[in-house]
Every structure is written in structure tokens, then in C-alpha cells.
């Protein structure tokens, strides 16, 4: 996780022109990164979170290899209790629950990371533009942000997804297109304070292009809070997907998602007498979300105590 923190990955290219100054900055950023890493590693729960999340990531990547069965394959025995052939039994249609559980990891990871990547990109661009240019551009973008923030997030996503059709791609897209306001506000706030700094003014005086100043000079210094926010965002996107799929407005069977595996438990017979059908996917969602929230908490502590110093 810590690797993404390096705000200066472009430094080697830039170093050609102003070697001395850039080398100094490079060294300084390295120590900053190390300090954050050190503080992060002290946060025990965050380290556990990283391990658990990496495991889930691994399960998602290796799903076709490690799953005992095809997750959509229908067997003769349905609602079978756990056995040697089906470790977690079969669902009411006759599909292997264990295999569906393993493939479900792909959905959660894909939505979590995909949606957040989309909205972080949108939020960064809008926030940079609003903060840097100010005036009516800022006014317009911030009022738009207010409008988007006034909608109860989950409800709009639910309605939008149901309108454009529930699918993995559409959920990711909708969460991604609606999630940007918090990031945009965050970036705008950072930009407002950073743009008054001497090095930004120097960049303007040197005649650098605006995109270069925005993305290479301002953005790297606003990255830390974005990273924390994005991490918690991954957790909330995973919950969102699971909830939508649970309501039948997300990933739909035969495709497997932890959320849609719990839909069956709305029937009281499944709920009370076949707990192997719904407890494992529920626990997986909880585990995935908890691990990401722990990582976010560790990152926030590591970065904030650094800033406070």
C-alpha cells in the first residue's frame, strides 16, 4: 500500500533539467515515505488488514484455479448440506457454494477498486480546476458538488442502476460517476492552501503550463488525504455492491457475488435451517470491509501524526 504514497514518481525524468534541486527533493520525499511506512507498520490492525485484503485479492485473481467447481454449474443435489464433495453445500439451484464464494471475491475487488479509481480521477480533476482557477468556475463546480451531495448517495445509485440495467460494469460505473464530490472538495481545499506557496508561484513565473503545475507541482502535495479518503471509499463501494446485489439490483445470478448469495436468506427456511448458504458470504463481506477500514485507519493515523509534527 505504501508504495502508492510516493508522490514523486516522475522525479527521475524531471531531474535532467534541475538535477541538484530535484535530487534533494527526492531524498526528502523518500524519508517522508519511510516515516509514513514506519508509523503505518506500528498500527497492528492495519497490518492485519493489509494481509487479509491481499489474501482476498489473491483469491480473486486465482479464482479459476482454486475454485473446486464452475460457479455456475448446476448439480443434481440442491440445498445439500456441507459435505466432502461440496465443502459449503449447494444452493437452492444446485450450484457449489464454495466455488461461488471464491468467485464472489472477484466482484467485490473489481467494484471496490474500479469504482474508486473512477471517482478519484473525476474528483481530482474537478477539485484541481475549481481550486486553482477560482471565480465562476469554482462557484459552478462547488454548486454542482452540493447538488450531488444533497442526494442520498445509496438511493440515487439504486435508482440509476435499476434504470440503466443491473450489471457489474454498470454498478462500478454508477458508483464511480457519483462518488466524486467528497474528493473534489478535499482536493479543492488542498489546492487553495498550496497554490499560495512560493514554489507554485515560481512555477507560474517560470512559465510552466497549467496542467504541469496542477498535476506535477500541486497534486503530489495533496495526495495524502486523497489516499485516506479513497481507502475508506473502497470499503463503502464493497458494501454498496453487496447491498445492491442483495436487493437484486446488482450482480445477478448465475454470476456469483457475495451480496446476491445472501438474497436467498430472505426466505425464512434458508435463513433458519441452511445457515451455510448465507453466513459464509456475509462473513466474507464483513472481512473484506473490515480489512479495508483498518488499512484506512492506519493510513490516516500515519499521515495525520506526520502532519501534526
Amino acid at each position, binding site marked *: 500500500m505504501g508504495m502508492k504514497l510516493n508522490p514523486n514518481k516522475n522525479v527521475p525524468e524531471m531531474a535532467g533539467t534541475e538535477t541538484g534541486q530535484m535530487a534533494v527533493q527526492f531524498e526528502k520525499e523518500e524519508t517522508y515515505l519511510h516515516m509514513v511506512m514506519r508509523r503505518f507498520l506500528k498500527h497492528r490492525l492495519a497490518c492485519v488488514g493489509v494481509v487479509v485484503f491481499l489474501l482476498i485479492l489473491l483469491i480473486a485473481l486465482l479464482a479459476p484455479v482454486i475454485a473446486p467447481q464452475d460457479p455456475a454449474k448446476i448439480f443434481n443435489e440442491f440445498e445439500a448440506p456441507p459435505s466432502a464433495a461440496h465443502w459449503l453445500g449447494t444452493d437452492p439451484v444446485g450450484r457449489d457454494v464454495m466455488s461461488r464464494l471464491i468467485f464472489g471475491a472477484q466482484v467485490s475487488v473489481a467494484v471496490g477498486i474500479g469504482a474508486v479509481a473512477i471517482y478519484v480521477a473525476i474528483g481530482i480533476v474537478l477539485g484541481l480546476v475549481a481550486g486553482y482557477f477560482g471565480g465562476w468556475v469554482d462557484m459552478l463546480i462547488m454548486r454542482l458538488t452540493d447538488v450531488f*451531495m444533497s*442526494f442520498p448517495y445509496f438511493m440515487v445509485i439504486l*435508482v440509476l442502476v435499476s434504470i440503466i440495467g443491473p450489471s457489474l460494469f454498470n454498478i462500478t460505473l454508477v458508483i464511480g460517476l457519483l462518488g466524486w464530490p467528497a474528493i473534489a472538495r478535499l482536493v479543492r481545499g488542498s489546492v487553495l492552501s498550496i497554490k499560495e506557496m512560493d514554489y507554485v508561484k515560481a512555477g507560474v513565473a517560470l512559465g510552466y503550463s497549467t496542467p504541469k503545475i496542477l498535476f506535477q507541482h500541486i497534486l503530489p502535495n495533496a495526495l495524502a488525504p486523497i489516499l485516506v479518503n479513497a481507502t475508506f471509499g473502497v470499503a463503502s463501494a464493497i458494501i454498496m455492491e453487496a447491498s445492491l446485489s442483495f436487493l437484486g439490483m446488482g450482480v445477478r445470478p448465475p454470476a456469483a457475488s457475495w451480496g446476491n448469495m445472501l438474497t436467498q436468506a430472505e426466505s425464512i427456511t434458508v435463513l433458519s435451517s441452511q445457515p451455510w448458504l448465507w453466513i459464509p458470504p456475509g462473513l466474507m463481506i464483513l472481512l473484506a470491509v473490515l480489512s479495508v477500514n483498518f488499512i484506512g485507519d492506519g493510513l490516516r493515523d500515519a499521515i495525520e501524526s506526520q502532519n501534526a509534527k
Partner: protein
Amino acid sequence: MLQYIIRRILIAIPVLFGVTILNFFIINLAPGNPVDMMVNPSATPEQLAATKHALGLDQPIWVQYWNWIVQLLHGNLGFSYSTREPVTQILMAHVGPTVLLMGVSLIVGYLIAIPLGIICARKQNSWIDYLVTGFSFFGISVPHFFLGLGVIYVFASKLLWFPTGSMNTLGGDGSFIDTFNHLVLPVLVLATGIGGNMVRYVRSSMLDVLGKDYLRTAKAKGLSQFLITNKHALRNSLIPIITVIGIDIPLLIGGAIVTEQVFQWPGLGLLTIQSITSRDYSTLMAINLLAACTVLFANLLTDILYAVADPRIRYD
């Protein structure tokens, strides 16, 4: 002060306008057509066109928006596409249960979270602090539907302490006790999320205040620990917490949709799911608008309360 409130309200007006536009266009640019759901499949194209015309659905989108807004300003939310009842009437029937559920959950969540947060801050890094922090992580991480199914499994299906769902026993007397019994489990679910979030804010805000100089002064003056914690520290640490209420409202609305579905609670959340299934766009638009106005109002209120509670905030 008054000037600040007026300016804050004036800013909310264009936002509200934007909300209506976004709300209308999201729903009306939908490819699915409500008329197809309303008339029987053997209807002739002429009949379809006639129904569309009667509903004004054959007009350009901006004309439809204008008509909708004019009706809205007259307090008319239109008629449900699926049951043909006035939308206002449908909303009225579902608002009560949702307000009851959300209100009780919010109060219960805060009543548990605020004292716990204070204890955690007072006894930082004690076992109780770790336990409560652990629970708060659980509270913010567990999906409402999983927790809901879990408590139904344990308390309704196995222990038989509470009913599995709905708001009143079918054919029952609808008494207060009956409703209360049905309310316990869904409130437990929503309050867990609300409380888990709140504990963390109270704890960190309280820790922040406890480190301040004026508390050391209070201690040096010889005030009792009780007075210091509950009067001097609590009052000041509650100020930033006001903003959390503004954050909680949209979360609560999202949580209520899922929770109402799990418990078959007859509120707006359940109505939302039903309207989506039956493509009842006029009802959906009304629910969306109501929810957005609630969020907008909650934000306005927290901003104003914040300014009232903290005199250090400048109103210019």
C-alpha cells in the same frame, strides 16, 4: 448571525433547483417505458399512444419537466404510474413508519455512542477503549442486510424473542407494545451503524478537548473530575459532533432502504424497491425529491446549529 442564516438559505435555493433537474432527468431518460408496464401486452399501438398522450409522455422532455415543476409548486406530485393513486397519498402512508424507524434508531444510536465515546477518551488505551473501538469498527463495516439477517436468525428464528418482520402483527390490535416489539430488531441494525460511526467522532473530539489548556486550568482550580468531563469538556467536544448528524442523515436513508427490505418494514425504503420493480417513475421521483430535500435541510440545519454553538465561527 441572521445575515449568515439568510445567506445560507439563499445558497440552498439554486442547489434545490439543481436537485429537481437532476432528479427529473435521471429518471426520465430511462430507456424503459412505464406505459409498457401499465397497459396489457395486447394493446394496439394506437392505445399505447393514447395512454402516453394522456400522461403527457409524448411531449418533449423539457416540457415534461416544466409541467412537473409547475405541478410540484402547487403541491401536486402526480399520480402513481402503477396504482393510479395520488403520489402524495402514497407517500403519506409510508412516511410515518420510516420517520419512526429512523428517528428511534438515531436517538438510540446517539444515546449509546456518546457516553461510550466519552468513556473511551477518558480511559484511552484501556480494555474498554479497545472493546468499544472494536465494536465501532464492526458497526461501520457490517452490511445492514447481513446484520439484519443475523439478528433475525438469532433473536427471531432461534430465540423467538421478537417477530421476524413487518410493523404490526397481522390481524393484531396495532398497539404500542406490538409496534415496539417489531421495532426492536430493525432499530438494533440501524443504530449499530449510526452508533459505530458516532463513537469514533466523540472519542477523537473528546481527546482533542481534554488536551486543551482550559481543562488543565479547571483541574488546577480543583473542580471535580465529573464536572470537568461532563460540563467543561463535553460541551466543547459536542460542537464538531453536530456536523456528524448532517453526515448521518444520507447514510441513514441508504441504510433504511436495505433494512426495511430485510424486515419488510412498510416505509419509504420498501416503497422505493416496489416502485423500482414496477417502474413507477412518478412515485420514485417524489421519494427521491423528498430524500434530497431532507438531506439538504439537514445540512442547512447543521451549518446553522454549528454557527450558533460555536461563537468563534465568523459569519462574514
